[in-house]
């Protein structure tokens, strides 16, 4: 209890420090990713940030599915109609200039919106090329991304996280821990005026870059952000020159949460370091420059290592830093659907009734050439609206609401499915994926072996991610078929909730021998597998069972029947054949 409280207070004081440093230089620091449920603690933190920002700085909240017209700006319909000439409306990002943008439910943020926000952050300006307007307006703001995700995989898009200096997690903070440090306000104001003159000694830059390197952080942005935070920290403490203390703070706040590996202890062979999960980031290679290592860097690295969040530390120690770190944006495209969005497929004449979206700009364009004539025709010239829009002018945007399909592969990776089958399944998935990304479909992969099923690859269209997770697919152990079917059904349901069409492909011999609770026993395991199959059938999902055993098995056929799936015995299946068969099934009945 007391330990929890102490921990909560420690987290809170870090969060307060992050709030102060962020409000000294919101644009420079990029922003703060706040993981917390909505509640009094989060509200308290947010109101502290608001209090620390300069008086009158704008704070703009972005609705989750904000449209481009509100986000970036566009045509102001009311003003345009009133004045009889096009009038532009500034978007939320421009309105947030010199202030803060708040992104609620950032874990569900559409990657397309995240990319737009990211581009504006990089440029410090909104480049508007919309609705007949071409404009560049300053938009220098900091971002507060409120992330309500419950696990590691559910977080804000990686492209956004990369641009935010701070990551704080308020889940462990109790309301009793929340306190305010009143003198922060004055210190922040003083720091803001001092910020421009703070200098950074070269060895501090070296030490921060070295720390980022040793923690396996690939993006150069991380070091730059750490540098800016160190500067803000020096200003906050009233120093003119960045000191070791500032660099340590920056390493703790900025670098530690981004670690993808633990620093190798002194004199250890690099191979002994935990395996690096991300191919793009550098392996601990032998020709590492060591002449930059110094006592300063060691101190800062130690500070950072000590601040690595406990959850992340566990993962790193196990050598399996979450694969989704830096990869969760593989959801690109998967969430693009929202009513009336999707792919615009041109504009046509029509009535803007329910379910149709009026395209204002095109409507005005259609009406525009007739204005002079209509005004002349008008019964009382000079009266009436400046712009006369008639029914014929209405243009509506058409959206192609093609449902995306997601092929869910449930692969039997148990001992009974020989290892080469696994290799074929991998090959087939890659072939399918190569085909899917032409058609913009997604693929997911579940493997079941030993005692349970595991989602190896959440729905993705990225060949890069798929290859990475396939490469690590292990084999051997029992056949928990029921667990596999359950996992596939759950995923299919989730996919459908997102408005996509799932289809499930099982690669198995159907010989279940592990029950749901992990105990062995053929009879019960098979029984459970069949009942799981019935559940899947109830979902009414297109399914297919590919029998991978050398001779066709009645079990697999029974399973297929139970889930109303297409049964395909492919004793000599190779990747090409499987891929073809799946495409045929997926294409049918659509």
């Amino acid at each position: 209890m007391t330990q929890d409280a102490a921990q909560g207070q420690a987290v809170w004081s870090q969060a307060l420090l992050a709030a102060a440093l962020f409000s000294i230089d919101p644009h420079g620091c990029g922003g703060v990713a706040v993981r917390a449920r909505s509640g009094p603690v989060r509200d308290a933190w947010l109101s502290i940030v608001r209090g620390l920002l300069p008086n009158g700085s704008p704070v703009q909240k972005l609705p989750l599915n904000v449209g481009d017209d509100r986000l970036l700006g566009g045509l102001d319909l009311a003003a345009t109609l009133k004045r009889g000439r096009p009038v532009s409306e500034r978007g939320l990002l421009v309105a947030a200039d010199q202030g803060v943008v708040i992104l609620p439910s950032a874990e569900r943020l559409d990657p397309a919106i995240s990319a737009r926000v990211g581009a504006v952050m990089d440029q410090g300006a909104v480049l508007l090329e919309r609705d007949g307007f071409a404009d560049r307006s300053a938009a220098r703001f900091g971002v507060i991304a409120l992330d309500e995700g419950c696990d590691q995989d559910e977080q804000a898009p990686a492209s956004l996280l990369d641009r935010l200096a701070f990551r704080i997690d308020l889940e462990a903070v109790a309301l009793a821990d929340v306190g305010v440090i009143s003198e922060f306000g004055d210190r922040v104001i003083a720091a803001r005026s001092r910020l421009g003159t703070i200098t950074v000694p070269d060895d501090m830059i070296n030490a921060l870059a070295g720390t980022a390197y040793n923690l396996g952080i690939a993006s150069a942005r991380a070091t730059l952000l750490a540098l800016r935070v160190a500067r803000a920290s020096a200003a906050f403490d009233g120093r003119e020159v960045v000191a070791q203390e500032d660099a340590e703070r920056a390493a703790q706040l900025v670098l530690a949460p981004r670690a993808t590996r633990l620093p190798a202890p002194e004199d250890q062979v690099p191979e002994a370091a935990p395996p690096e999960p991300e191919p793009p980031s550098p392996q601990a290679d032998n020709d590492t420059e060591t002449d930059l290592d110094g006592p300063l860097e060691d101190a800062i690295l130690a500070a950072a290592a000590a601040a690595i969040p406990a959850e992340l530390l566990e993962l790193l120690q196990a050598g399996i830093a979450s694969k989704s770190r830096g990869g969760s944006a593989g959801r690109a495209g998967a969430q693009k659907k929202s009513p009336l969005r999707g792919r615009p497929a041109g504009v046509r004449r029509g009535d803007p009734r329910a379910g149709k979206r009026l395209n204002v700009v095109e409507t005005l364009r259609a009406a525009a050439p007739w204005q002079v004539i209509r005004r002349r025709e008008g019964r009382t010239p000079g009266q009436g609206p400046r712009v006369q829009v008639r029914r014929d002018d209405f243009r509506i945007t058409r959206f192609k609401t093609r449902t995306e399909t997601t092929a869910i592969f449930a692969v039997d990776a148990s001992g009974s499915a020989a290892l080469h089958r696994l290799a074929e399944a991998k090959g087939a998935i890659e072939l399918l994926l190569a085909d899917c990304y032409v058609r913009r479909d997604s693929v997911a992969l579940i493997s079941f072996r030993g005692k349970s099923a595991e989602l190896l690859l959440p729905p993705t269209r990225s060949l890069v991610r798929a290859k990475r997770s396939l490469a690590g697919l292990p084999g051997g152990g029992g056949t928990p078929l029921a667990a596999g079917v359950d996992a596939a059904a759950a995923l299919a349901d989730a996919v459908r909730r997102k408005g996509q069409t799932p289809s499930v492909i099982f690669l198995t011999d159907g010989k279940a021998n592990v029950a749901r609770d992990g105990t062995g026993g053929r009879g019960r395991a098979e029984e459970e597998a069949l009942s799981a199959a019935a559940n899947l059938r109830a979902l009414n999902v297109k399914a297919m069972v590919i029998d991978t055993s050398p001779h066709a098995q009645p079990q697999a056929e029974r399973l297929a029947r139970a889930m109303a799936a297409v049964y395909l015995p492919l004793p000599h299946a190779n990747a090409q054949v499987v891929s073809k068969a799946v495409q045929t099934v997926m294409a049918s009945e659509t």
Partner: protein
Amino acid sequence: MALHFPFSAIVGQDDMKLALLIAAVDATVGGVLVFGDRGTGKSTAVRALASLLPPMQAIAGCRYHSDPVVGCAVPDCCGAKPGSAAQESITVAVPVVDLPLGATEDRVVGALDLERALTQGEKAFEPGLLARAHRGFLYIDEVNLLEDHLVDLLLDVAASGENVVEREGLSVRHPARFVLIGSGNPEEGELRPQLLDRFGLSVEVKTPEDLKTRVEVVRRRDAFERDATAFTKRWHLGDSEIRDRISGARSAVATIRTADVMLERASSLCMMLGTDGLRGELTLLRAARALAALEGAREVGDQHLRRVAPMALRHRLRRNPLDDAGSTVRVERALSEFFDGAAERRVG
């Protein structure tokens, strides 16, 4: 106008810089795709190119900044005749146009000028980004996130060099020849093969792997952010040297000799790699020629072919999902086999 990070101050990333320079020397290589990790300075390099390019001549008052030598044939524009002395010609910067995410179709291709239509009842064409990018560069950051209907549009225009607008009763066609530059992160979605193929050169950027380089990256970036004017001034000389190299290479590129044996070698290299179509071969030769011009060589040699082969060919390999090695590795493998093997044979 905000100052751009100087091109010559970019640390490392030699492939990316070379590809951009080659495109600047010879626009016909057909665009550059820069794909890679986050925070590696992809867009920095492209934007830096903008302030590096030697200026060009354009017809004064022409909305498509047409070349005075070629003239402007678009109706309702300046109507300049080719080479006509009556037209005043001015020096303008080569356009490097950003196509931001969220751009609407009307701004990309051009549309009815709403202002004039509403206030004066005139039907006039307002050129879009494609017109602005004519004779220059069109840059799309996060190209893999661009909406499909815009991608289709771009493909069409990039292939034909002409933008045809048929909308709102307007019927306009104007030249739109530009070098397409795209950048993105493959983790956020793959690029459609049709678009991939449109890029002449493709480079992969990675985070530099040695610490010294990384320190230098951060140090320069920081110095630039602290005082952009002073930093740009410090690198002014480096930038103007590169500018001179581009100018020199541009005038030299037509005279670079390509021996028949080199043509053969380029063909057999492409055949060995199994690249689709002739486009790869052409790009390979053009890029090698541009590189030779940049280096001040008189003719294309093996070293030029070898240097540009990965960027000209790696995105044209037939995808083989069962081969775990990335395309870069495959090209490298084939290259060392091809060149080193050949060298041995010649020696032996």
